[in-house]
């Protein structure tokens, strides 16, 4: 029996990209369905009645919501190929800790860069680069967060790289200048097919952010 895998998401969503990368790493064929968040589909509302948000992974009709829950599900169901988590429980705990840190900090800090101006924006830029520096510390001299192999934390974090051009342009600053190690890591990840095909063109993302700003009135 072949698996039916559908991903409800939107092309700019970093959270959706996480699941796309995980599925690609595992070689799983899936159907990407673009949602219009101003007019959510019946399917989305049925599959995620609690939050009504994307991404939603639907595997043989059963929904998995929340991007990191979905990534762990992909990891555990298709466990025989390209493991994203190490086998050692302590290393796994570290990976989960850093993915959780990304969830708690990066989205909000990034959002405040394009959604604010003046003093608020300066604070947002500092908060953002401070977080990236903490992550650079966790990365150390390793090629990937988990060590030699691309893994869970890389999957959780690299989608935000597609938004960097938008953050830099809105905030008039260079992330490369502040966090060169981070950019080097991101470029390394982009060399992987799973990442390159899951992340949108940063210029397209910038166009999307400009529209968002108009809609929100900034």
């Amino acid at each position, binding site marked *: 029996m072949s698996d039916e895998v559908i991903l409800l998401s939107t092309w700019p969503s970093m959270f959706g990209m996480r699941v796309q990368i995980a599925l690609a790493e595992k070689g799983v064929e899936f159907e990407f369905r673009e949602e219009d968040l101003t007019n959510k589909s019946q399917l989305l509302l049925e599959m995620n009645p*609690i939050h009504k948000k994307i991404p939603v992974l639907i*595997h043989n009709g*059963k929904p*998995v*919501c*929340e991007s990191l*829950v*979905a990534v*762990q*599900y992909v990891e*555990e*169901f298709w466990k025989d190929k390209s493991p994203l988590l190490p086998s050692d*429980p*302590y290393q*796994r*705990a570290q990976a*989960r*800790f850093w993915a*959780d*840190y990304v969830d708690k900090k990066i989205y909000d800090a990034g959002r405040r860069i394009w959604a604010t101006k003046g003093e608020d924006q300066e604070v947002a830029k500092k908060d953002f680069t401070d977080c990236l520096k*903490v992550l650079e510390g966790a990365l150390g001299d390793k090629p990937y967060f988990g060590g030699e192999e691309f893994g869970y934390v890389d999957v959780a974090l690299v989608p935000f790289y597609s938004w960097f051009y938008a953050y830099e342009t809105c905030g008039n600053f260079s992330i490369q200048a502040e966090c060169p190690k981070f950019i080097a890591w991101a470029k390394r990840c982009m060399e992987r097919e799973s990442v390159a095909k899951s992340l949108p063109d940063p210029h397209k993302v910038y166009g999307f952010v400009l529209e968002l700003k108009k809609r929100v009135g900034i």
Partner: protein
Amino acid sequence: MATSDIKLIGMRPSPYVNRVQYALGMKSIDYEFLEEKFGSKSELLIQSNPIHKKVPVLIHAHKPICESLIIVQYIDELWTSGPSILPTDPYDRAIARFWAAYIDDKWYPSLKQFRMAKGEEEKLAAVEAVKEGLALLEDAFVKCSKGKSFFGGDSIGYLDIAFGCFLGWLKATEKLADLKLLDKTTTPHLVVWAERFCADGVVKDIMPKTETLVEIAKILQAKARGSNPN
């Protein structure tokens, strides 16, 4: 494994710390509890959790593990001889993780908001949010338990721990506000589950007494209002 090999930095009234205690108890693991003082952070805590500087922190063979649910998964994955905390099926695991995230991101914050709410309008809106959440969790219980005693089935599992740790604070909130949040008409399964969870041998030695939590809640409310009863 020597007791001194495993330390838990925590505060006994913290539901997040209790989660780790329940997991350690389920696996019959001995450990040393290092109590943090309310209002100050020890050197050890800051060193072990420099990012968040929060409890709980599990220190195992000198290596720290932070974030309550991450610690619970660590305990489950390392000590495989005891009962399994997470379900074995990947989809069941995803459901358990989803609801644990819902409880942390939405439901418990709504309970805290209700406890700290000022004025009738704010309180009414807040209590509605808490009750809506409990109705969702009642449904989740029916689906996850599949007719058995706990979210995890026959024995206490990940979601029982993730949610059950808040029962002490739920009861304290009910007492302070003089109303029932869990009740037999709207959340019959959760009422039975809550009694069963609180009566469990491991849980009852760890769950703080409602009276203690009521006192702490009063102190926190007073602090929020700007006056200090001390």
